[in-house]
């Protein structure tokens, strides 16, 4: 057990993780409760913002799982995030029946569409358990089916990216239609309370933030568990040399489908936590550019490291929030520039920069294939070419 835990990362790694988790889960709430005049106090409006960033972090880690470790560049991953968000949104809408603008049992958008009753797929969402189950299962099922067919046909590389883009685009078009029954362009909004507590109260916001932080830590641990296991080894092998892995007897389709579905469900979880903090979910969350931005968070941070994408997500979203306020016209230049520069000059991302700086002496000669692989994992894990023990 201990050995297995040490496989995640060494003692120092665990220490850093514990400190970071404590900072997120304990320190920030404490700082928030300090009186406003304190220099280090965290103001109220930052809490939902931080929560949002943490949800993005979960999404980034999930994406790293499929891209950094398995080599599947999905440009439609935000679809699962959005579906999870819609699941939570449906629960919140059912819960506020009678309190909307129209004071009707139906959600407001159904009233202005002149619908008289709930569509069948809305039934059951007034129960929290059911809603949570559905918001994980539906994206998971979609990912399973899509992944099964896609990977079985050996679609990979740019073709897969384009097809995932088409998938999320088609879903977006579908959800934009009011007739589909999910609020159309407005989406689901105007939420009032969650599990009995008002969504406007600072306590609920704090609780949601803490939940996001906990979810992030758990996601990270889960993913670490996966990638340091045997399965993780096979994934890396599939990423680097799929044909050879298949010829060695590993059914790559199964592995890919597994990690694809897992990643989708993690994204859905992130979406479900995101929606109550942001207060609205609408089909533009499914647009292809969101998924492409997700890819760049992972690339900027450093693929195949789990920590890197998290850093990338936090960095880029923080920069976005700042720049769209301070220098609105500059933001797109910065973002576009980052895309270009990271792909050209920083194939290992920011984390790779830091690690390379530390390991400059030991770096091998640069061949294109090498740049696809991450450097030796942090925190002193076993080196890459260790034999996979049965």
């Amino acid at each position, binding site marked *: 057990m201990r050995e297995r835990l040490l496989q995640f990362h060494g003692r120092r790694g665990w220490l850093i993780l514990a400190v970071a988790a404590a900072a997120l889960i304990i320190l920030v709430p404490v700082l928030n409760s300090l009186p406003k005049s304190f220099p280090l*106090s965290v103001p109220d409006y930052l809490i939902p913002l931080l929560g949002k960033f943490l949800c993005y972090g979960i999404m980034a880690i999930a994406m790293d799982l499929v891209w950094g470790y398995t080599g599947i560049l999905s440009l439609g991953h935000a679809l699962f995030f959005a579906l999870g968000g819609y699941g939570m949104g449906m629960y919140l809408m059912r819960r506020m029946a009678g309190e909307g603008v129209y*004071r009707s049992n139906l959600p407001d958008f159904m009233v*202005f569409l002149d619908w008289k009753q709930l569509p069948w797929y809305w039934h059951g969402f007034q129960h929290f358990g059911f809603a949570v189950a559905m918001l994980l299962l539906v994206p998971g099922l979609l990912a399973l089916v899509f992944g099964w067919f896609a990977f079985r046909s050996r679609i990979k590389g740019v073709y897969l990216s384009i097809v995932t883009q088409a998938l999320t685009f088609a879903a977006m078009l579908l959800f934009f239609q009011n007739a589909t029954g999910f609020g159309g*362009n407005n989406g689901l909004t105007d939420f009032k309370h969650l599990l009995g507590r008002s969504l406007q109260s600072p306590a609920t916001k704090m609780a949601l933030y803490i939940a996001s932080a906990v979810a992030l830590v758990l996601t990270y641990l889960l993913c670490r568990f996966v990638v340091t296991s045997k399965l993780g080894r096979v994934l890396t092998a599939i990423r680097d040399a799929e044909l050879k892995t298949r010829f060695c007897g590993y059914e790559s389709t199964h592995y890919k489908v597994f990690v694809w579905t897992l990643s989708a469900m993690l994204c859905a979880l992130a979406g479900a936590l995101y929606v109550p903090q942001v207060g609205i979910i609408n089909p533009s969350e499914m647009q292809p550019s969101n998924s492409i931005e997700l890819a760049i968070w992972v690339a900027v941070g450093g693929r195949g490291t789990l920590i890197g994408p998290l850093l990338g997500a936090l960095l880029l979203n*923080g920069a976005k929030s*700042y*720049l769209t306020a301070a220098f*609105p016209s500059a933001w*797109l230049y910065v973002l576009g520039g980052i895309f270009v520069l990271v792909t050209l000059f920083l194939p290992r991302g920011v984390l790779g920069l830091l690690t390379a700086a530390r390991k400059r002496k030991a770096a091998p000669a640069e061949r294109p294939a090498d740049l696809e692989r991450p450097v030796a994992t942090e925190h002193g894990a076993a080196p890459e070419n260790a034999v996979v023990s049965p």
Partner: protein
Amino acid sequence: MLDQGKNLTMIRRYALSSLLLLGASTFGACEKEEAKPAMAPAAPAAPAAPAAPAAAPADDKGPIKVGILHSLSGTMAISETSLKDVALMTIDEINEAGGVLGRKLEPVVVDPASNWPLFAEKARDLIQNQHVAVTFGCWTSVSRKSVLPVFEELNGLLFYPVQYEGEESSWNVFYTGAAPNQQAIPAVEYLMSKKGGNAKRWVLLGTDYVYPRTTNKILRYFLHSKGVADDDIMEKYTPFGHSDYQTIVADVKKFAAGKRTAVVSTINGDSNVPFYKELGNQGIKATDIPVVAFSVGEEELRGVDTKPLVGQLAAWNYFESIDNPTNKAFIDKWMAYVKKNNLPGGDKRVTNDPMEATYIGIHMWAQAVAQAHSTNVDAVRQAVGYQHFKAPSGFDITMDAENHHLHKPVFIGEVKADGQFRVVWKTDGPIKAEAWSPYIPDDKGKIANWLYPWACGNCTEAKYK
């Protein structure tokens, strides 16, 4: 890849990357500085850095902060950028006249980039972080609906300048745009009349979101009340940004065969251009099938070749072509502002209804602050109701204290070849807005009245008996 020494390459790369990023930011920042001299810097929102100590709210000295929440990029930038510009112009005008309560107004401009969740985030930032006294913003109903909970939670004040679908009246919002009975219903009545063509069949064509859906719902009930059967009503929706109207226009032609038909268009944004082009290409003339649009104004006509549109209609509460001294002064001020700040478009810039509504709203708010001797939201809210203002439309406009909507006159205009409108019909004076449409059965008896004893925006009986 490259064969030079690795260290040198890495250094070059870092240097290049940093330079490019620096350059991009500077370029963007420079653009921003030139175009918006009055913009105030916002506090950074980096997650891990500790926030600066919050400034004391409701400062009694120093400038009054005014939030401007309009999309400056994305699909809605086309419509909303002008509102930001005219808001800045109005603020300059007020400042030149001495400001409000002896203090200057300081605009805080943010860009929610046509992204609805970002609207809510920026609204929260404006109120809680920037401590603005009031916000002027939003265009689409989605953006308004997504910021509404924020304004209600934090007791902010929003002035919303765009025509919309009604069915709303919030304690924290003042609506300076038209409700359906101030735009849609008079337009349909005009088309039913002899002057408008005696239309017997109706095509309700819109973009697929809440404003067209709700407006068309109201119109359908209205048409029923006038004896029009469902068979004579065709309702179609297209998504935002839709550009291929061949089949839809052909369907309209078929539907119109043999009976006088009118089209009520709530198509929004970019889609109007291909729609009108297609109408022209398929030979539909305004005298055969008149099309009245609620979201096409002078600004939208700027990007369009107006030849095929001559004679088509629009319904608004203001047109740039209205001939009176107040409007002339307004237009002159605006063109001077455009010239002074080198706004893109130069002397091709126009004024339109939402711009006039923004202008009215900012002035009314300033008047209310002066009357209340305070920027406190509750005090100002009391004072905004009953404010008068001599508007560029030529009428004396009042803000209804009961439902928080403006009394507005209605104009129906025909498109001219030069992109302006010729007024062909107008009301005698401003009419009161009906926040809850009397035509919708579910709305029967609903009242929006924030005064005592009702004190509600959406109720059937008074709060205080």
